[in-house]
């Protein structure tokens, strides 16, 4: 079959690779019909997640049709149209039973790598390096889905492929940020990052009752999409003082909940951003936490900061003093898709959650390298490129 493979830093190519097969009784094989690039893929592309090997198939956010099921698969049949959680979880360990699916004890077949790195291994993920299991990704004609009863969800007939696709990761991640960030009616919420995850976090905050939701970014096209399709307020960090705007918007309190949806390659203004750029390029820190710092600084006393952006290892100049003295709760997680996808599909069916505008470019799988060029370099207003194998 054809698949989009990582070949080295900033090098992708479409290659012929072996078809996947059933390896466990709880597996399904899914024929991929839509698969979308995620901002976190850019960290792989840039070499910031150094657990990739040349030839690895990337992609983790997808939708398709079940074409084969293992003997222990109970809820899916051949022909089902399913959206699949990007994180692989067993559904039966203690963490899964708490709804913390991305912390699954049994979903990662390479646990020793991240045990050494982080102290414990998270679950597995499709197409996201050998640190998260070395699973083949979804930018391919077919993909093996372990624990299919747990991670694959039948899409209601009334929900289009284009909409349901984003339940796989972006919408679920965004919802998690608002939910676990504790957004409540009346809150003022700020979201750093107007990518797909940031927009979905903003929409989730609105649906959870936030009084005001402000999305912050530096790309005008993305801010315009957020304003038009999500209905939130926006701030362009290149033309205004984010902190001053947020203080004015909250009458000096600071935001109740800050959601960081940027990650390890953050941009910003001023000394802090320049410092991070230099230090990351000199390899003195692995991640650029510019947006996290700004989120912490602008959150009210006893507020919550939720980190959705992907970080690899360590950051410098983390404002722990602000965390302590303002009494903040700082939380983060890879996404617990299995916890949210059924609810998200229902909301999509009711029209409460629309995602089609996120797919600014739809391309065949053969154009995968071009899709990532558009995406990485933000050409032609690209927010998310969708591939159709």
């Amino acid at each position, binding site marked *: 079959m054809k698949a989009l493979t990582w070949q080295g830093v900033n090098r992708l190519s479409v290659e012929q690779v072996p078809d996947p097969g059933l390896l466990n009784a709880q597996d399904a094989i899914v024929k991929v019909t839509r698969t979308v690039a995620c901002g976190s893929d850019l960290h792989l592309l840039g070499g910031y997640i*150094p*657990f990739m*090997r040349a030839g690895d198939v990337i992609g983790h956010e997808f939708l398709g049709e079940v074409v084969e099921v293992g003997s222990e698969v109970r809820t899916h049949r051949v022909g089902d149209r399913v959206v699949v959680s990007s994180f692989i979880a067993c559904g039966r360990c*203690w963490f899964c039973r708490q709804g913390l699916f991305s912390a699954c004890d*049994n979903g990662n077949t390479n646990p*020793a790598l991240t045990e050494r790195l982080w102290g414990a291994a998270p679950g597995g993920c499709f197409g996201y390096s050998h640190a998260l299991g*070395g699973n083949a990704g979804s930018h391919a004609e077919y993909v093996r889905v372990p*624990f299919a009863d747990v991670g694959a969800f039948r899409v209601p007939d009334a929900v289009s492929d284009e909409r349901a696709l984003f339940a796989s990761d972006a919408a679920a991640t965004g919802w998690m940020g608002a939910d676990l960030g504790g957004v409540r009616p009346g809150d003022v919420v700020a979201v750093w990052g107007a990518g797909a995850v940031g927009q979905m976090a903003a929409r989730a905050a609105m649906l959870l009752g936030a009084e005001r939701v402000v999305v912050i970014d530096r790309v005008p096209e993305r801010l315009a999409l957020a304003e038009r399709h999500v209905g939130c307020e926006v701030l362009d960090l290149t033309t205004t003082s984010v902190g001053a705007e947020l203080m004015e918007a909250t009458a000096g309190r600071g935001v109740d909940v800050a959601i960081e949806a940027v990650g390890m390659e953050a941009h910003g203004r001023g000394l802090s951003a320049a410092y991070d750029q230099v230090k990351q390029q000199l390899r003195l820190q692995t991640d650029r936490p510019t947006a996290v710092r700004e989120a912490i600084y602008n959150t009210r006393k006893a507020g919550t900061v939720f980190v959705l952006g992907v970080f690899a290892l360590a950051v410098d100049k983390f404002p722990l003093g602000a965390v302590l003295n303002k009494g903040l709760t700082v939380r983060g997680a890879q996404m617990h898709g299995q916890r949210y996808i059924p609810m998200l599909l229902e909301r999509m069916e009711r029209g409460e959650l629309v995602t089609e505008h996120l797919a600014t470019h739809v391309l065949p799988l053969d154009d995968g390298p071009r899709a990532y060029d558009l995406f990485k370099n933000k050409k032609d207003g690209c927010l998310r490129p969708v591939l159709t194998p």
Partner: protein
Amino acid sequence: MAAAGLAGLALAGAAAGGLASRAGTVASAGARPDRWHAVTILCAPQDVGSPGAWPQPVAELGDRVDVRVVPAPGDRGTELGLRARAGLRPGESPDAADLEDRIRLALRHTRMLLETGEVLQPDRPGTTRTTLTSLPLRLALRRSQTGGRP
């Protein structure tokens, strides 16, 4: 590329360092040869088994290991602990490092079997090819299931 590659090597090296050097578990500060390796399994203690009727990954270790089964605190299930028998521990036997690896693998597989009914298989056949810059990662992956925290 060069800079990113260096970062890759550094980060992969952080993970690979401990994995590639099995002796590190013995030599590191605070190492104790009789320390238990353990996992917490979401099931009742009686479901983990009993002497003569352990799950296959534990049974395969035979009389080379001590086995400890105790209820976990709260609602967390059962703690299954394994350690090499006296005389087979690090510093006592030339095969001790290999046995430690087998113990970690047995614990992980036992948890998978008891919680999910099967051992999750990694994707194969692989699609990767060997490159020079992936050497640290390749070394780390050799022990990606058997290594881990001391």
